[in-house]
């Protein structure tokens, strides 16, 4: 048992942190979000090529550094600290993760393109009726010769407007909520028959409703693994947003502490009010819980499916709850200025709020944990 980071991991963190400090200050981020594309693609390219960070969680035979979930955790925590909108989650954690686990020719072809920054992936899994049930899928992939034909509607696909590829869950058989028959496909985003309605999200990303109408895809687009693969990848993604949450929570605590030291009311810095001091202590305590659970779940990602699911759900539920506490109290402590677009804190709060529901609400994950931990 050893909970310390190695030297390479420390270096990865520092490299990214230094780069983001230069590129992701509040004003630059605001400009990025306001631009037509809603981001600065040069930043992603720099992370991949100049900094060479995208290779961190990939195996050496794919051109990577041999890292894994811990490296993703470190990166996501740093992205959280500046509320970056880079597609690391979708491209490296989810797309890269699915390819790593499925292996095969598609992995060998695509992972180097991810590492080089040329391939950007969006994860089209949610459907309007499905809430958080990964098997509640109406999108169909009908076998057609050696390939498939896709039909359906995927909702709120983060990063889709930026993506070169879509990772799509679709049903090759079975009824609406059957686990059997759900498969995962990686396809080019510009295949004929794919249409999108793009929009910004409240937390600063771009996303799309994606419609598939008789989209012909080759048989090689299938990543073997079915629902188990999808669940594993989503668990990894869940821990990645927990790591992001850890960066966000810490930053919200720091910003609140700094703000209260400067802000004066009733003749003194509001940091002197005992009620606010104790509240910020509680925020610190909860932010610590977020970091602890981000670590716990990440360390359990490679366990057997049941243990992994229980750990991830426990982590996500706790992260959701603690993050809500930190965020709401950060805003309350800032007062009116906290609910305007003017200070960074409000933007952290918005992203933090959306993380609460991403890949499953607090209740969803508590229920999944309970089902595994206390079988009837």
């Amino acid at each position, binding site marked *: 048992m050893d909970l310390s980071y190695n030297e390479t991991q420390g270096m990865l963190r520092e490299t990214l942190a230094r780069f983001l400090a230069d590129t992701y200050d509040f004003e630059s981020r605001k400009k990025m979000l306001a631009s037509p594309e809603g981001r600065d693609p040069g930043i992603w390219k720099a992370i991949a090529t100049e900094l060479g960070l995208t290779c961190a969680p990939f195996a050496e035979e794919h051109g990577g550094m041999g890292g894994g979930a811990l490296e993703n955790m470190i990166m996501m925590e740093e992205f959280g600290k500046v509320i970056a909108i880079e597609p690391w989650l979708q491209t490296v954690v989810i797309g890269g993760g699915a390819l790593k686990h499925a292996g095969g020719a598609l992995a060998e072809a695509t992972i180097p393109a991810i590492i080089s920054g040329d391939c950007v992936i969006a994860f089209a899994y*949610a459907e*309007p*009726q499905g*809430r*958080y*049930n990964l098997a*509640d899928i109406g999108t169909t992939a009908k076998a057609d010769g050696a390939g498939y034909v896709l039909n359906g509607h995927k*909702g*709120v696909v*983060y990063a889709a407007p930026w993506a070169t590829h879509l990772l799509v869950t679709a049903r090759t058989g079975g009824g609406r*909520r059957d686990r059997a028959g759900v498969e995962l496909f990686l396809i080019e985003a510009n295949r004929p028959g794919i249409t999108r*309605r793009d*929009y*910004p*999200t*409240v*937390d600063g990303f771009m*996303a799309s*409703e994606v419609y598939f109408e008789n989209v012909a895809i080759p048989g090689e687009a299938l990543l073997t693994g079915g629902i188990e693969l999808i669940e594993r990848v989503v668990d990894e993604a869940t821990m990645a947003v927990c790591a992001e949450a850890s960066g966000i929570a810490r930053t919200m605590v720091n910003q609140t502490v700094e703000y209260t030291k400067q*802000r*004066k*009311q*009733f*003749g003194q810095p509001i940091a002197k009010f005992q*009620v606010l001091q104790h509240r910020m202590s509680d925020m610190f305590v909860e932010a610590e819980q977020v970091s602890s659970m981000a670590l716990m779940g990440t360390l359990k990602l490679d366990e057997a499916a049941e243990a992994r699911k229980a750990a991830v759900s426990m982590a996500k539920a706790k992260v959701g709850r603690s993050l809500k506490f930190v965020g*709401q109290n950060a*805003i*309350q402590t800032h*007062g*009116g200025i*906290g*609910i*305007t*677009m*003017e200070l960074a804190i*409000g933007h952290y*709060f*918005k992203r933090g*709020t*959306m993380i609460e*529901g991403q890949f499953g*609400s607090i*209740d969803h994950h*508590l*229920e999944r944990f309970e089902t595994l931990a206390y079988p009837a």
Partner: protein
Amino acid sequence: MDIDFSPEDLAFRDEVRTFIAENYPAELRGKQDEGDELSKEDFLSWHRILHKKGWVAPAWPVEYGGTGWTPTQRFIFSEETARADCIRLMPFGLSMVGPVIYTFGTPEQKAKFLPRILSGEDWWCQGYSEPGAGSDLASLRTKAERNGDHYVVNGQKTWTTMAQHADWGFFLVRTNPDVKQQEGISFLLIDMKTPGIEVRPIITLGGEHEVNEVFLDNVRVPIENRVYEEDKGWTCAKFLLAHERTGIAGVAGSKRGIEKIKAIATAEMDGDKPLLSNPFFRRKVAELEMDLTALEYTELRTLAGEAAGKGPGPESSVLKIKGSEIQQRITDLALEAAGHYGAPYFRGFGEGDNEHPIGPDWAHRTAPSYFNMRKTTIYGGSNEVQRGIIAKMVLGL
């Protein structure tokens, strides 16, 4: 003691219901339901209809245009308008400056302003908060200096709700810098078209333009537009703060909010069952109803106390604290119900834009509402300030 309505009260309730059913503007129906931003005209249309009926200011004394209703009738009226999801009337004229003017104003001020508040001809805004002052109202720095028959006002106000529409504003200004905090403040009525006034929008987290900064640069205000004595404006402010707190429980509105959540959670599916059948979602709805009922009876007990001659005292801080927390929890639950569809940001129907929002009709406003409603525990005297009031005024700490 009796919680039931008398036959007269029931008849009155039916009268109100019928009036709303027959007169509430068709084009406003459902608009508030989806939480869209409302235009000035939206607010005013219902205001004018109520004014025509004589029901726009139930709380005012009859001599100034009030209805003369009993407290129970006023309770029924506010219940019924909320139940029908009628647009909320802007409080700045009707509930705030109006009562200040009929309580402290000169006969000329009453004659000039009150009828135009009732008719909706004047849209009012409130110039209280200043940058860096927040809940500490008394530390204000906007100053008004006498110059013949005018004050010359210089300074800056912030969090001025709906100032972009305002014809008039009521402002707290410092007329004497040499006395301690709460003294030396005066209460001025300022024509928002006076040269030297600039209104700049503040955009809040959900993208709304509700609040503004107001800059005052050598703004000339006739002396006769000062309410009450010079340097004694804090008396008006205190009066108004107590007034503001009583309505702030928002019981009727929150009842309607919970009904909406229930409707949403009955329609929205969670697997093969309505979301309302999920025991944990259902429990949160039940807890909201429970807490709201406790608040409602706390308000009724406060009203009974008022009827027995106790004015709206510091106990009304209880209503502010609990009411605001409940309002926030309602938005929290709506956002949870939206699931994935809480994320899309829909900028509203721009000119020529007929595109429908993403996801279920109600979902696109859930995140902005959740963000926006964080304000309820901050404004109107933050909940921390309210706890301080209870500690000091009720518990004697």
